[in-house]
Every structure is written in C-alpha cells, then in structure tokens.
C-alpha cells in the first residue's frame, strides 16, 4: 500500500526514482518556472510542520487542563479560544472541540473520508491514521482497534467514536494518570502522548517507558 512498494524490479546500482518522486520533482520545478510557487516558501512550510507544529502543543493544552480547573472548563466549553490562548491556532484547527475522557466515557477520533486531524495541536497525522485499516475499522469495531493499541476498556465504559466529517477538529482530553499529584505542567506534559489525544491511547504513568 505504501509508496515504498513500487519499482522493486530495478537492476541498477543506484535506486531508481519512484513515479511519485519523479512527478513531484517535475511538478515543483514546473511551478517554480511558471512563478506559481516559491522554493523558500516550500522550505518554510516543511520546517514549520517538521519542527514547530506537533503533538507537544496539544500536550501543553492537556497538562494545563489537568492542573487548572478553570482552564479545563473553558477548554470544554470553547476549545478554539482556550487553545488559541496558548498560541495554537490556524490551519486545520480553525474550529476546535475538546472531548473529555472519563472512567465512564472513552472518546476516540477518526476521519473515515479523508484524514482530517487537528494540525494546530497534534501536527500532521501519522501514517496509520491516514491508512485504510484505521479509517475502515475505527467506526465499526473500535474496541478491537483500541485493543491493538493496548487499550482494553471495561464493558461498562461507553466508547464514542467521532468521525470528523466537517471542519470541526477534535482533541481528546485524556484522563490524568494516577501518581501525578504535585507534578508541574512541564512534567505532566511529558506524560501526554499523541495517541492519548487521538483517543487510541491513554496518558503514560510516571515511570512508564516513553
């Protein structure tokens, strides 16, 4: 299924470029030649999403909500504003909704039709989130999917799957782990995994391997 599966039939000493590599190179140089895109702008976009916008943003939001009840209430009432106040806003986070996980309700997020994802707080989505197995199965057998991530929930816990079909973007607020009393916001943020904010994981406990 991946781009790596193509063109294994070459017999050169050096690897042949895949169809996608060739097309992207040709397209970029064509658009630059026509004055439609600017290479430094492309570099800046890549750098932004490789080094600055990522799940550490969301982890800071979650950790603050864990220690600050007023902030948590704001986040659950108006996630867009509460998240913007932390400096995280813009593309693919224009309208945010926060979903609180509790012992009784476990939320998880999918986009079955494409791969909508809250870029402002989680960065760009991982391959599994964009791929057919997760997109097909999350809605019909969420508990089996969660089990593959090592999350086994009690029968009494209600599983809510949110299929992001519109321009709302969902951030799961995972449960604060036990054994974290007295930890500060930076220490708590270290426990907040990307998957716990998608709802396919839970936050790490102190001392768990990262």
């Amino acid at each position, binding site marked *: 299924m991946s*781009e790596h599966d193509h063109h294994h039939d070459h017999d050169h000493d050096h690897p042949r470029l895949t169809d996608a590599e060739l097309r992207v190179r040709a397209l970029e140089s064509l658009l630059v030649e026509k004055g*439609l895109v600017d290479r430094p702008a*492309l*570099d800046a976009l890549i750098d932004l999403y490789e080094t600055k916008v990522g799940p550490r943003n969301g982890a800071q939001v979650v950790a603050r909500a864990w220690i600050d009840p007023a902030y948590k209430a704001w986040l659950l009432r108006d996630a867009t504003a509460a998240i913007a106040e932390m400096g995280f806003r813009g593309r693919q986070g224009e309208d945010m909704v926060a979903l609180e996980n509790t012992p009784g309700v476990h939320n998880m997020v999918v986009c079955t039709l494409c791969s909508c994802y809250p870029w402002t707080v989680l960065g760009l989505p991982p391959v599994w989130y964009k791929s057919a*197995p997760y*997109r097909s199965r999350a809605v019909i057998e969420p508990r089996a999917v969660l089990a593959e991530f090592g999350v086994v929930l009690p029968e009494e816990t209600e599983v809510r799957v949110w299929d992001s*079909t519109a321009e709302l973007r969902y951030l799961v607020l995972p449960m604060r782990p036990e054994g974290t009393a007295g930890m500060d916001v930076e220490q708590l943020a270290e426990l907040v995994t990307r998957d716990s904010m998608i709802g396919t994981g839970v936050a790490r406990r102190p001392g768990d391997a990262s």
Partner: protein
Amino acid sequence: MNGAHDLGGMHGFGPIDPEPNEPVFHAEWEERCFATTLAAGFLGRWNIDMSRFARERMPPVEYLQTGYYEHWLHGLETLLVERGLVSAEELASGRAAGPAEPGLRKLGADQVLSVIFKGGKARVHEDVPAKLAPGDRVRVRNHHPYGHTRAPRYVRGHVGTIDRDHGVFVFPDTHAVDGQKKPQHVYAVRFEARELWGPQGGRRDAVYLDLWDDYLDPA
C-alpha cells in the same frame, strides 16, 4: 461520490500497524508534495472541498494501492490542469510553455507563518435558522450524489440524535462544485453503534458524525 475514499465500516484491510517513533515525513518527495500543495492552494483557485473532491476522483483501484501523499499529488495535478494554471502538456513534459497568467500572487516565505496561523475558516457568520435542535431524532438522507459529499455511506438512511449544534458552516457539496457556500447549520449527530452495525455494535457504544442540515430529515 461513492468512491474508494469512503472507507468507514469496510472489512479486510488488516491490522493498524503503527510505526514507533514515526518521522513527520518518510521521504523528501512527501515533504515537497505537502508544501507544494499548500503553496498552490494559496493561489486561491480552489477551496478545500474542491481539493478533497479532486483526491476522491482518483480511480478506486489506484486510490487503494497508493498512500496519502500520492492522493495529494493526484489531487494537485488534477486541479492545476482543471483550473488552467498549467496545461496537460506542461504537466507531462515538466517544462513551462509560457508564463503563468498575470495577477496570481504566489506565497512568499515571509508570509508562511501568517497564512498558516490565520487558517481558512469554514464557519460562516450569518444568521441562518437551524432546522433542528439538540435532542431531535433525525434520519440521514439516502442520497448517492456523483459529486462531493461528506455524509459517508455507512450512516445514510440511519437514525440518530442531535448531540449539539456547531453553528453555521459552508456546505461542502456545493462549495466543491463552484464555491457556492450555501451556509447552514452543522450538528454533531449521535448514532448508537447497534443502529449502524446491528448486534455486532457495542451495546453502549456510539459513533458521532458532523452533518449538515441538508443531509438530515426529522425522524
């Protein structure tokens, strides 16, 4: 459209297979494809719904055999030609036959942060009456348009309950065609798992979808 992108509820794709310590991009061409798509989008010749529809129109067999950024590449090539920014000949040769049409403003590196942090709002600040209210029982219309739609097949014809009203948004089905916004309310609608999947759905579990007024009728 009933395309290969509409994956919810399908069987046979296998395990999820997460990659530990996954990089943001897996190859240079993915980075370039990502950035070129965003930069070309800022030329203003298409909107996000047109982008999604261009990816969805990839032939189904091809869609399922390729990855995310190949879908993006297909969509970008399709839109560039359809909107007349490049010709099919230029795309095939990789060489410009002439300059771009005048008046287009390319994204500069110094604008990247501001345009990304500004985002592109699909919310419409217009006073449009809501047809439905939280608590209402609704049935998703059983419609199979050839064009773009955001009501997945697995929910059509099924009955759910309005959980919350998100407010007024652009309607993707028309926005993808000619940019017509047709602003209307979007609701989070709760469907019991057993309503969608029968006895194999979890007894207490539910699926929530964001759906527009035009997709819904009172049940």
